[in-house]
Every structure is written in structure tokens, then in C-alpha cells.
């Protein structure tokens, strides 16, 4: 029976080789893979898929992963444990097998591969693994994303990790709430839905393979939670991640989009707070543009975006005349005065009427003069407040140097500083009475502080002059007293001499 089976197999093999060569002549490896030859005829699926696998074209055989001897046509011999046959690998051993080559640059070089290596190491440190003590367990294996026998290059459109298919692949888990609940219930599952609404997602659907997909932002193997400082999607790293495409003039060529955003952001008040001061409450790219649903805010929605942090400013603006006027003129709300990526610290300079200033672009002596007058008055008030505060500070510093007690005045001046801060919010109402309501009390406090600080300095000199007068009076009294004592004692001496008594008893 066994002899019959072997004979039949040999006949079939003899017939199948020329047939297979006819069907996929170019995919045949140079080295004869006896395992592949039999399995293609027997069960077919795995072997058929392996026909187009990058590993087969690189010269790998079934035995490269499954072990055994691929050179012999004797099934028992080829699949014997003595020849290292391991059968179908399961669990962690799958990725370990892949990692044997892909984690080793030298091995990969032998196959003529010059791309990145270390994928398994990256995967073991990623969010797709769990660490308990020193034990790392992979939550998914290489084959879960790349497939097992039909592995293709990621740039191959048929690969499950290709630009046009990878979003669906990731979503197969990440869009499934019941599945995700097992690993991370707090993670949203609407990433794909949002992505489809983004510019990236729309372009991707249209077949644009250059637009960002999951792995472009999250990386492929080293995916880490955004909270981790080493994550490519951490707020601190995001400008660099987005900038890989958006700051590259070459990559963005043909899109019509500028590539100065990242540089502008770095120079902005937001960028400096985030990247230089490491203030994690400062916005990164995604805070304004969204992450999976990334899109530039429209003219109408800018105040909503900025208003998520600058809530009071946005509220005042919405109630202001400028809101309706900007809408009528189709001007973006916050951006018209503050810019977008290069937002600079909002100083009093913004409230100016010089040529090129935001106010002057609409208001002039003859053009919308009501606003011109209001802006002029507001700036005057603000300059007065700042100047008075500055003068008070100078006087206070001088008084402090002289050792005067000025803590109370400094404490009071904090309210003036607070008024100045509030004025920056109040300006968004674009109403002179509302602005005066905030600045006037601050100005009053600052003037009083200046008066008190000046009085403290004057008091210092008053004390010195007072002391000089007092010490002079005391010194004169001392001299007078000393002379008086001398006179008394001389008189006593003379009296004693006259009376013939001794000078003292």
C-alpha cells in the first residue's frame, strides 16, 4: 500500500512540474522546494499563496519556516523531526520565526535586503504587546497583519498593509468595540469613521497612496500610546511626525499646500510653550486639526477650535459686532488678527492703528471711524495702565532697595496686573464700555500704587532728614550737658578750694 502511494505521488509530481511551470513559470524558485511541489497538489491554498510570497522570490522554501528538508521528495524524511520539522508554528513562535531573520540585519543583508530591520523588537515594545515583569506577550503576531503564505511587499497593492488596505486591516480590530474591550476599553473605536471624513481619508479612498494612513502617523511596528513620550503621536513629537510630509516641499509638491506650517508653529506662542517649555497643556497639531479626522478648520469653525481653550475670548467674540462683520466679509474669525500656525503672544501691539496692523486693515479715520476711535481709546487706556504699572514697579523696587515696607502696595498692584490680563480677554467684545469696565479699575489701582510707592520713597528721605535733625539735637544736648557738667564740677572745685575742704569725701 505504501509502495503504491509513493509511486502515485512520483507520477503526479512528474506531471505537475511542467504544468506548474506553464502556469507560474516566473515564480518558480531557483532551488527545488519539494514541500511546495507536493503541497501545491495536495491542499493547495497555502502553497498557492506562497507562489507570490516575497519570501519565495527571495529563495526561501517551506522548510525555512516549517523546518524539515525541502530537498527530498520523501515526505516522511522531509517532515521528520530529525530534519528539524516543526509543523505549523503557533502563538509567539510565529513572530519568533519571522524575527529570526527580520530582527537580524546581517541575515537580511544576505538576502540582498537593505530596508529596516528590528521589527520584532519594535513590536515587543509596542502597544501591541503586554509586559508583566520581564515577560513580554505579543497581542498580535506578524502574520495577523502581513498574512502567512502570501506575504507581499507593503508597496504591493495586494498586501494587507499597503497604503490603500492598511486602514481596513487596522480597523478590523480597532473598529470592533467588543474586541477592543478585551484589551483597552477606554480606546475609542471610531478612528476609521473619522479618518474617512478627513482629507487624508478622502484622498486614500480616491486611491492616493501618498496620503497619510495609520502607519504613517503611528508607525508600523513601534506603535505606542500617545501618552508615552517616545510615541510618534505624543504631543511633543507630533509636529515632527506631521512635518515628515507637511514640511517637505518635495513630498507635498503638486498638492498646492504650503510646507511652512511646522516652522511657523515652532516660532509661535503655542509651539514655544509646547516644545521649549514642555507645557503639555499647549496645543499640538492635532488639537486644532483633529487627529483621525484631520482637516483644516473652516472659516466658520476657527473660533470653535480656538475657543476650546480660549473659551472666554471666543464667547465674547461671538457676541461682538465683529462676529457678524467677519462672517459677512468671509474673514476667518481668530485668524484674521492672530494668524494661524505662527500665532504670536497677544501683546498690546495687536491693538494698533499703524499701517499693517489688524485693526487698520478695516478701520481708518475715514473708513469705519467709530471703530478707529474706539481702538484708539482702548490702546490709550491700555498704554496708560501699563505705563503706570511700570512706573509703580520702578518706584517699588527703589523703595524696596531702601528697606521700606512695600508688601501691601505690591499686593495691591497684583489686581492691576490682573486687570491688564483681563483686558486681553475683554478686547474680544470689541466694545469700549466693556473694555473700560475692566481697565479703569486696574488703572485706578495702578495710580494708587504709584502714589503709595512714591510716598514710600519720599518717606525714606523724610526719615533720613528726620534722623539728621534728631541726632543733631541730641548731639547738641550732649555737648551742652558735657559743658554743663564741666562747669558744675569746676564751680564745685572752686567752692571747695575756697572753703578749704577736700574735693571729695
Amino acid at each position: 500500500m505504501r509502495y503504491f502511494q509513493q509511486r502515485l505521488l512520483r507520477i503526479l509530481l512528474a506531471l505537475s512540474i511542467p504544468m506548474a511551470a506553464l502556469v507560474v513559470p516566473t515564480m518558480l524558485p531557483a532551488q527545488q522546494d519539494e514541500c511546495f511541489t507536493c503541497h501545491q497538489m495536495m491542499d493547495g491554498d497555502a502553497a498557492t499563496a506562497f507562489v507570490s510570497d516575497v519570501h519565495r522570490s527571495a529563495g526561501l522554501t517551506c522548510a525555512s519556516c516549517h523546518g524539515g528538508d525541502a530537498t527530498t521528495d520523501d515526505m516522511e524524511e522531509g517532515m521528520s523531526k530529525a530534519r528539524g520539522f516543526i509543523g505549523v508554528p503557533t502563538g509567539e513562535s510565529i513572530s519568533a520565526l519571522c524575527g529570526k531573520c527580520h530582527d537580524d540585519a546581517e541575515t537580511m543583508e544576505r538576502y540582498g535586503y537593505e530596508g529596516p530591520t528590528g521589527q520584532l523588537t519594535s513590536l515587543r515594545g509596542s502597544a501591541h504587546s503586554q509586559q508583566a515583569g520581564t515577560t513580554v506577550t505579543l497581542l498580535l503576531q506578524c502574520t495577523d497583519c502581513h498574512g502567512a503564505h502570501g506575504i507581499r511587499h507593503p508597496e504591493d497593492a495586494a498586501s494587507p498593509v499597503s497604503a490603500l488596505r492598511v486602514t481596513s486591516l487596522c480597523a478590523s480590530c480597532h473598529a470592533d468595540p467588543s474586541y477592543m474591550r478585551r484589551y483597552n476599553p477606554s480606546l475609542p473605536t471610531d478612528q476609521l469613521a473619522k479618518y474617512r471624513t478627513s482629507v487624508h481619508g478622502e484622498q486614500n479612498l480616491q486611491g492616493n497612496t501618498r496620503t497619510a494612513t495609520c502607519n504613517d502617523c503611528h508607525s508600523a511596528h513601534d506603535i505606542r500610546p500617545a501618552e508615552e513620550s517616545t510615541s510618534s503621536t505624543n504631543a511633543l513629537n507630533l509636529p515632527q511626525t506631521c512635518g515628515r510630509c507637511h514640511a517637505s516641499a518635495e513630498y507635498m509638491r503638486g498638492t498646492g499646500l504650503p510646507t511652512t506650517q511646522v516652522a511657523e508653529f515652532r516660532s509661535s506662542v503655542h509651539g514655544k510653550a509646547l516644545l521649549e517649555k514642555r507645557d503639555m497643556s499647549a496645543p499640538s497639531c492635532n488639537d486644532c486639526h483633529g487627529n483621525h479626522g484631520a482637516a483644516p478648520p473652516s472659516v466658520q469653525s476657527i473660533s470653535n477650535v480656538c475657543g476650546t481653550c480660549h473659551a472666554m475670548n471666543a464667547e465674547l467674540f461671538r457676541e461682538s459686532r465683529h462676529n457678524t462683520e467677519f462672517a459677512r466679509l468671509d474673514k476667518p474669525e481668530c485668524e484674521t488678527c492672530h494668524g494661524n500656525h505662527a500665532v504670536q503672544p497677544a501683546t498690546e501691539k495687536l491693538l494698533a492703528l499703524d499701517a499693517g496692523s489688524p485693526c487698520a486693515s478695516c478701520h481708518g479715520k475715514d473708513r469705519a471711524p467709530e471703530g478707529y476711535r474706539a481702538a484708539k481709546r482702548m490702546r490709550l487706556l491700555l498704554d496708560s495702565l501699563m505705563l503706570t504699572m511700570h512706573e509703580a514697579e520702578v518706584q517699588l523696587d527703589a523703595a524696596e532697595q531702601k528697606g521700606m515696607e512695600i508688601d501691601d502696595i505690591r499686593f495691591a498692584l497684583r489686581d492691576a496686573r490682573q486687570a491688564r490680563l483681563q483686558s486681553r480677554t475683554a478686547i474680544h467684545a470689541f466694545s469700549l464700555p466693556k473694555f473700560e469696565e475692566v481697565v479703569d479699575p486696574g488703572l485706578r489701582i495702578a495710580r494708587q500704587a504709584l502714589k503709595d510707592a512714591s510716598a514710600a520713597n519720599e518717606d525714606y528721605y523724610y526719615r533720613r532728614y528726620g534722623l539728621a535733625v534728631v541726632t543733631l539735637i541730641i548731639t547738641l544736648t550732649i555737648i551742652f550737658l558735657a559743658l554743663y557738667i564741666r562747669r558744675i564740677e569746676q564751680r564745685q572745685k572752686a567752692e571747695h578750694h575756697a572753703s578749704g575742704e577736700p574735693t571729695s569725701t
Partner: protein
Amino acid sequence: MRQWLNDRMDLDAVVSFAKKKTVPAHRHSVWYYFGGVTLFLFIIQVVSGILLLFYYRPGEDTAFESIRFLMSKVHFGWLIRSVHSWSANLMVLAAAVHMFSVYLTRAYRRPREITWVTGVLLFYLSLAFGFSGYLLPWNELAYFATKVGTDIAGSVPFVGGPIMELLRGGEQVSGATLSRFFGFHVALFPAIFTVLLAIHLLMVQRQGMSSPIGEEKNPKARSIPFFPNFFLRDVLLWLIVLNILAILAVFFPWELGVKADPFAAAPAGIVPEWYFLFMFQVLKLLPAHVLFLEGEVFGVLLFGTAMTLWIFIPFFDRQSQKGQRGRLFTIIGLAVIIFILFFTILGWVML
């Protein structure tokens, strides 16, 4: 008017006493004036203290604020506080000079033992005034200095714990400590001080100034009338002291510092007032263990014993009682002065 008062108060007797009263004149007479200077500074303390009381409000939430208000808003409030603080320091200095001059001239010898005992107690009470008054502004430095000071008191074996709790009004320095220290500073200590001072001055008036040993039997010994000669010289010195006090108070006003925060970490460089510095420095330099005692306990016991023995010096110095100038007690006195000066300077340098 004079007659009216004379009928009721027998002023003639007082005038007669003053006319007859004389003060020995010799090469050590200059030391006589330091008692008067101390008294003058004490009077300034009382007057400026009463003025401060008009504004001071004891309490964790009010003490610091009331002093700040006094210094910044009240006319001459800064001057009153500064004068009070400076005159307190000058008073301790003058009292120390007075005490050591009395010691070295053996003025404590019979029949002036009571004057010495009350004088030393008055000096100790002055130190207690300084310690209790230091906390009253409730600033950071005072808070932690009081903490350290009461900790030291707490290290005394057996009675230290209860003493510390009595001083603090609890386990920690808190608002209760402030209330207690205020009570000590303005009521308890002044009451005891007044009694002791009355006895001290009464004894001085009754017994007159002591002449140095050997001077009493000198047939050529001179004296000057108390009125007006000595009294006017006293006033002259008081005026000089007043001038110094005014210059110090105006040019070096006593700073208020930062309000005490019991939850904050102790700032670096916490040191007591200069007159406690030598004790603090010695306690710092003592080894962890001396004999069978902890270093700090040993130090506290040592100072406690020395201070107690110091009160009774007249009774130990038998030679001075016989009118002889013993070398041993001169050596002890000089050793104490050098010890205090050395460790005060060392403490100052090592700040």
C-alpha cells in the same frame, strides 16, 4: 504746691537723701553707668512695647498682618518696632556688660548678694523676653528658630517633654504657642521683672554703689555727689545711647521677612538671636554622645547647671566675702567671657 506735696509725700526727706547720696570715684567708675543704661533701655522697651500693643493682634492669621500694617500704614509704626527690637538687643548687651563688670569688680560681695541674685534673674528674664518676643511677628525665621529653641528645651531629661509642651501649648509650634508667648512677653515676664527690678533698685539705693576691693579702706578714696554729677553723667550716656539707637533704627530697620508657614520646609541658615548663638554653636559642635548622655542633653544640662551656679556665685566666693580678691573667680569670670565671645564669633563665622 511744693509744700502741698511735701506735706503728703515728705519730699524733703527724698531731697535730703539725694543731696547726701554719693558715688565712689575711681578708675573703674565707668562700669557703674551700665546699670543705668540697662534701665534706660528697659524704659524704652516698656514705652515702645505699649505703643506696639495698640496695633499688635496675636494669632496665626493676624500677628504678621498686624505688624505689616503697623510698619507700612501707621505713622512712625516702623520706627516704634525698630526701636523696640534694637533697644531689646542693646538692653541685653548692656545688661551683660553690667553683670560681668559687677562680677569682675566683686560688687556682689556681702552685703550685696540679693542685688546680684535679682540682677542675674533679671538678666535671664531679659533673655526670656527676647526669646518670647522673637516669635511674635510670626515670620518664617522666628517660627523655625522657636521650633529649634523649644526642641532644645524638650531635650532636658524627665522634665523636657512637659516643659516643651507647656511652652508650645501642644506638640508643635502653632497659634497656641504664639498666644502663650504673647502672654509671657506682655504679662507674666513684665510682672516678675517689675518685682525683681524693684528689689534690685531698692537694694542699690539702700546700699549705694559698691567700691572695688581695697578701695573701701583707702583713705584717699574719692566720691562724687549723685546729684547732679553722677545723674547728669548718666543722662549724658543715655543721650548717647539714644543717638545710637536712633541711627540703628533708621539705617537698619528691623525687617519683617516672610510670613511663617508651618507646612513649609525650614529655610537654610536658621539661627537664634545673637545672645543665644554661643549656646547654639556649642550644642552643634558637641559629639553625638558625651559619657552616657546624648550630646545635646549633655549640653543643655551643662548650660542649665552653669546658669544656676552663676546665680549663687556670691555664696561660693568666700574670699571676696573677706574683702580679698581671689584669683580663681577672676579666672572663672574671664574664662566665661572668652568662652561666650569665642563661640558667638565662631557661630557668626559659620553661619
